[in-house]
């Protein structure tokens, strides 16, 4: 069970109050894109053992979306940041590096 803190309303609650919304920072490729780009957008997902970046929504609370960096092995939450962010912010990356030196996630490190 994850204990999460919503960055939008500051509530600390357990996992069932939230809902995971898939991988974060996906780049959308729609009509007119190449088959390869569309395939990557549609199907290619990370399955890391370690740091992972996901979209979450505080379903039973304030209803806002946010992005969370967490560890799939230790269940540690490295941090949360606004959903309107295009790539993991530097302070989150540093926190991950402190715990998992040499980590990679997609082309982020």
């Amino acid at each position, binding site marked *: 069970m994850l204990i999460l803190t919503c960055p*939008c*309303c*500051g*509530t600390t*609650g*357990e996992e*069932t*109050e939230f809902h995971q919304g898939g991988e974060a920072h996906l780049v959308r490729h729609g009509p007119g894109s190449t088959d390869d780009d569309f395939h990557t957008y549609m199907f290619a997902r990370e399955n890391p053992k370690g740091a992972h970046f996901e979209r979450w929504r505080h*379903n*039973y*609370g*304030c*209803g*806002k979306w946010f992005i969370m960096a967490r560890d799939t092995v230790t269940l540690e939450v490295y941090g949360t940041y606004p959903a309107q962010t295009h790539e993991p912010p530097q302070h989150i990356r540093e926190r991950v590096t402190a715990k998992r030196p040499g980590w990679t996630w997609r082309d982020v490190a």
Partner: protein
Amino acid sequence: MSEAVTPLNGARYEGLAIIADAGLSGMITLRGDLSSKEVKAAVKQAVGLGIPAQRQALTGQATAVLWMSPDELLLICAYDGVAETIAALEEALKGQHFLAHNVSDARAYLHVSGAGARETLAKLCPVDLAPHAFTPGMVRRTRLAQIPAAFWLEDRGVFHLICFRSVADYAFTLLKTAALPGGEVGVYR
């Protein structure tokens, strides 16, 4: 005009806690920029209260303002006064980006009071309801067993709980079951 009734129609149960229908109450959802002076002035004019801090409620004479999310407030007022209050809000916020909507009939409103009130809610919600952790004036939107609900604690130790009207009976039965005598846990004694 038809006679308005609450979904629970005055239901009441006394067990470890007292679960009671709170009666008809006006509720207005107000969305907008809560940090703006226009919203602040409009709320002051409409219900005579300020903007509560994050996850807090402000209570006045038969009115209340609840912080629901970073851009949403719930205003509580008299059931008959809703149209008037919304008109006041709309007048005060003319030209602003906002939404004020009457949700009075969309909700069920309950009071949970008595010695076992904290325990009754704690059985159903994943919330730390210890007296030092959940203090008067706090608002919490959460999960009440299988349904979304919100509650806030008034100074006199009464929990005010709202949920959707369609699940009013579920919420009442659930709270009643959690407050059945013999089910004391005594965790907050």
